[in-house]
């Protein structure tokens, strides 16, 4: 009510120019990214016949969701002003821990799942504490843990199994239940949709709620935008940042569980390099590298753009040698659309 009063008061302010509702919509940070996604979608619909089928769309969504789940927490961390280079291998670590523990000790896989959660959160905590205690930039700290985890993944796996991959846990107790949770294919109106897509949407919704409607969200923006000021007004900057690192660890654990239960064994060398794709998704979606600005929805759209582009090129049957070339061109296209939209929405900023 009082808000309505305020609104109308603001509208009457002679120091404000009138804006059409469309303009106002276009001013929202996610809108540009969304339009970029729409342009790409239209483009691939035209150039690739197979692209418009429902089944193809669900493939694209699946690809997007596996990036997107991680991109959500990585975006939160970036809004909070930090990077986590260990995010990619931590997924593999999570999966390996669950696989090795369950298999070697012949336990119900759920035990492995829980132990993996504890270990992964512990790694997130370690990242956070290392960052907070040493005062080194997070880029360096997580680079260190990235390398160490990548090495440990391989070293431990070889030590335990003698091979470079974990053993298949497909026939172990609890596998089917866990698979249903982390990697099931659902039938939605005749189309198979992987459950990760739903989880992705849930995570995005939760992250958006946290960012915009909770105190923690306020603190995350503040820690990234101006850590000194945030500290000065009493925000527990260190605790927020540690929490964000643990958030990344949590989604890494989740992604690791998907990896494990979708493919039943895990290669120890997987995951390297993915951390940058997560960051890329967040940045395409409008997160600032310098922190303090961005949104979870934007990151989700970024992941969707990335997933759509990488699969769209396959659907379009372009020369695979040029795959990355097209990928780069499409990403630039999407971000330029994003930019043009925002410029037009806010002419003189």
């Amino acid at each position, binding site marked *: 009510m009082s808000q309505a009063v*305020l609104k109308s008061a603001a509208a009457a302010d002679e120091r404000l120019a009138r804006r059409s509702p469309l303009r106002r919509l276009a001013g929202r940070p996610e809108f540009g990214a969304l339009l970029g996604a729409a342009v790409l979608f239209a483009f691939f619909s035209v150039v690739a016949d197979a692209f418009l089928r429902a089944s193809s769309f669900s493939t694209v969504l699946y690809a997007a969701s596996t990036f997107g789940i991680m991109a959500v927490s990585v975006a939160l961390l970036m809004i909070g002003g930090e990077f986590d280079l260990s995010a990619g291998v931590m997924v593999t670590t999570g999966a390996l821990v669950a696989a090795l523990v369950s298999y070697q000790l012949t336990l119900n896989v759920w035990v492995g799942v829980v132990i993996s959660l504890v270990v992964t959160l512990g790694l997130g905590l370690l990242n956070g504490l290392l960052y907070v205690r040493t005062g080194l930039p997070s880029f360096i700290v997580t680079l260190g843990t990235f390398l160490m985890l990548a090495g440990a993944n391989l070293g431990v796996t070889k030590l335990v199994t003698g091979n470079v991959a974990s053993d298949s846990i497909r026939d172990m107790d609890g596998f089917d239940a866990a698979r249903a949770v982390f990697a099931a294919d659902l039938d939605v109106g005749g189309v198979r949709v992987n459950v990760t897509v739903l989880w992705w949407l849930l995570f995005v919704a939760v992250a958006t709620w946290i960012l915009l409607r909770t105190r923690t969200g306020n603190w995350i*923006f*503040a820690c990234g935008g101006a850590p000194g000021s945030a*500290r*000065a007004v*009493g925000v527990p900057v260190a605790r927020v940042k540690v929490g964000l690192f643990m958030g990344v660890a949590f989604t890494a654990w989740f992604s690791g569980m998907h990896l494990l239960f979708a493919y039943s064994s895990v290669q120890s060398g997987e995951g390297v390099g993915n951390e940058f794709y997560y960051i890329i998704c967040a940045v395409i979606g409008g997160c600032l590298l310098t922190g303090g600005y961005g949104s979870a929805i934007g990151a989700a759209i970024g992941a969707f753009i990335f997933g759509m582009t990488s699969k769209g090129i396959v659907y379009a049957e372009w020369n695979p040698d040029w795959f990355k070339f097209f990928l780069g061109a499409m990403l630039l296209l999407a971000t330029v659309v994003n930019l043009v939209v925002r410029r037009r929405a806010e002419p003189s900023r």
Partner: protein
Amino acid sequence: MTGSGSAPLVRLTGVGKNYGNVIALREVDLQVSAGEVTCVLGDNGAGKSTLIKIVAGLHRHDTGTYEVEGRRVSLASPREALDLGIATVYQDLAVVPLMPVWRNFFLGSEKRRGLGRLDVPYMRRTTRSELLGMGIDLRDVDQPIGTLSGGERQCVAIARAVHFGAKVLVLDEPTAALGVKQAGVVLRYIVQARERGLGVILITHNPHHAYPVGDRFLILNRGRVIGHHTKDEITREELTALMAGGAELEQLAHELEHTASGAAAARELAKGAEDLRPPPAP
């Protein structure tokens, strides 16, 4: 140490602070009791902001003691100071430029309702009305604070501290960027706070602001205390003279007199003579 009920709200004794090899403060005493305004005055770079950053918990002092209501403390963060009821307006304002005005206003002291949800309408409304009370009519409390004018930003920081300050209010040059009307409001806020029994620490370069509202005056120079007076010990003229040699103004008037076009200005300056030496306007 004393622990008695009548202990001052904040008492610093022999406080010193170095930044690396830069000695910013040496052997400074400061005290503010309930219902009292302590003014910290001094030249640029004298160490005033450093002093209040120690009070606010932003920096830890290197030597000396810091007592709050008689209990010795060593604040590790501004959070602890806030929890003790000490709210601060920093000279650099401590705002997060990209965040909306209302989020900045409540940052660190968010108002929540059930389920940890932020009470957004309340916060928006409060921000707007508190700023209106200071004579700032914001277009939109959702504007990023970085796009406000300097004075508007300053007002947000002051309104916030006044809103949350429970026992002690620390203000570092609050009126510097403010217009005539806003500066008047801030001084009135200070008086009101004192009436409500808060302790106020005020930093200013303007003796005309300091003298009417201050009860104690601490004058710093190059990191040391060069004067500590209660109101009855000192007149406004003595205070202004202490803050800077009155020579500056006379020198200026003199120079103007010697130039043709400056004559009028000199006459004007001479007219405002007594109250202008030394300045709010030199």
